[in-house]
């Protein structure tokens, strides 16, 4: 198969998939035929990404694989098409998600301890149903509470390749409080 064919096949497959496509899935495309190597696939993907550089859609890599994405600058136009405003999440929901993303795996009790308020079941359900969090196990303490973690879909939806790409939470606390944290450690431990 020529490089040209390989690129054509990947292009068509990527556009016919809503979910990102992994290298493994790309190999599956070729069934019983000669399967291209990962190197060949990556080369074709790079070339394909180049073809779209000047267009309003881009080939991007996220945790789940590769996908085509419509440019962010077109959102204001697309918003004119629909009356459905994309969901806004409450502060409670976002704080719960932040706790899970940065402290995973974490129990609901641990989230509640930091936030100082009970975590509504509805919040967990909303995040689970959105596909952003899931139960990854149970903590071996009395009651065996569920351990919550974020999913690959969470990374995909936020355009991230891995959890390491999340902004560093420590950076958010600015200078003056940093020495406080040091002091605190002395006091706290």
């Amino acid at each position, binding site marked *: 198969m020529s490089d040209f064919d390989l690129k054509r096949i990947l292009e068509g497959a990527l*556009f*016919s998939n809503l979910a990102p496509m992994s290298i493994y899935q790309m190999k599956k495309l070729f069934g019983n035929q000669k399967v291209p190597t990962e190197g060949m696939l990556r080369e074709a993907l790079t070339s394909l990404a180049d073809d779209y550089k000047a267009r309003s*859609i881009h080939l991007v890599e996220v945790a789940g694989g590769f*996908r*085509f*994405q*419509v*440019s*962010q600058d*077109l*959102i204001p136009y697309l918003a004119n098409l629909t009356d459905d405003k*994309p*969901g806004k*999440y409450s*502060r*409670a929901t*976002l*704080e719960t*998600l*932040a*706790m899970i993303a*940065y402290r995973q795996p974490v*129990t*609901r*009790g641990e989230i*509640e301890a*930091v*936030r*100082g*308020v*009970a975590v509504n*079941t509805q919040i967990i359900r909303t995040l*689970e*149903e959105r596909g952003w969090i*899931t*139960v990854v196990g149970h903590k071996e*303490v*009395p*009651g*065996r*509470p569920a351990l919550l973690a974020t999913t690959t879909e969470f990374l*995909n*939806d*936020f*355009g991230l390749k891995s959890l390491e790409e*999340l*902004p560093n*939470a*420590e950076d*958010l*606390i*600015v*200078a*003056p*409080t940093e020495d*406080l*944290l040091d002091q*605190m450690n002395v*006091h*706290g431990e």
Partner: protein
Amino acid sequence: MINNAQGELRLAVVEGSPLTQLPEDLYIPPDALEVVLDAFEGPLDLLLYLIRRQNLDIIRIDVAEITRQYMGYIALLEAMRFDLAAEYLVMAAMLTEIKSRALLPKPLNTEDHEAEDPRAELIRRLLEYEKVKLTAEVLDAMPRVDRDFQIAVAKQPDSDERTIPPQVDLSELVLAFSELLERARLSSAHQITWEALSTRQRMSEVLTKLKEQSELTLSELFSVEEGRAGVVVSFLAILELVREGLCALVQAAPGSQIYIRPVSENV
């Protein structure tokens, strides 16, 4: 990569960091308290607000003054939103303790490590909470699918062999709807007038079983002999138990096994 479109929400800047969502010297008339409280995510959030309003570094908080202000809010809160007050009251008790300890002379003979600053634990919690709060804001500002960008798709070529879409049985659909109706009914809590005896009885049975085995699968509570009526009664009983906070339903992923667990002391 961080989209600061939400930046305008941060109304106050304290020592270089954007901090609060509320105007700095917001006066809260008592009758508006209920509305304002919805803006706070709990006692830590309220406390953080009170501290930041004075443009203070957390470590230098004047516990006496903050406690006075906090207690003022709590007094109003208690009268209006008793259901919420518990968490706020715990904080009030903690503040009072810190304040009273600070007022007492320090015992002279104690070892250094015992004479820890009573504010330390509170400050640690406040800093930790503030970090989560800021992280949540950053997370919300990050571009995400549907809101900030769209997945590009093209129509798949028409082909018979292309996909086998999931099959749905009519009974599944009917069941989904009836469950939905139940849930809607249960969430509008005040409309519930009385419980059928059989449901109450089943609730007790479920709780008894949960005492013996700390975890049950949903299917363990349904038996074929009881037929449809039995399923409905069990289902109602479980929903009722969940509503009353006596047990919790846990499911790892859509379509996977659902477990029932007692709500225990651990949380």
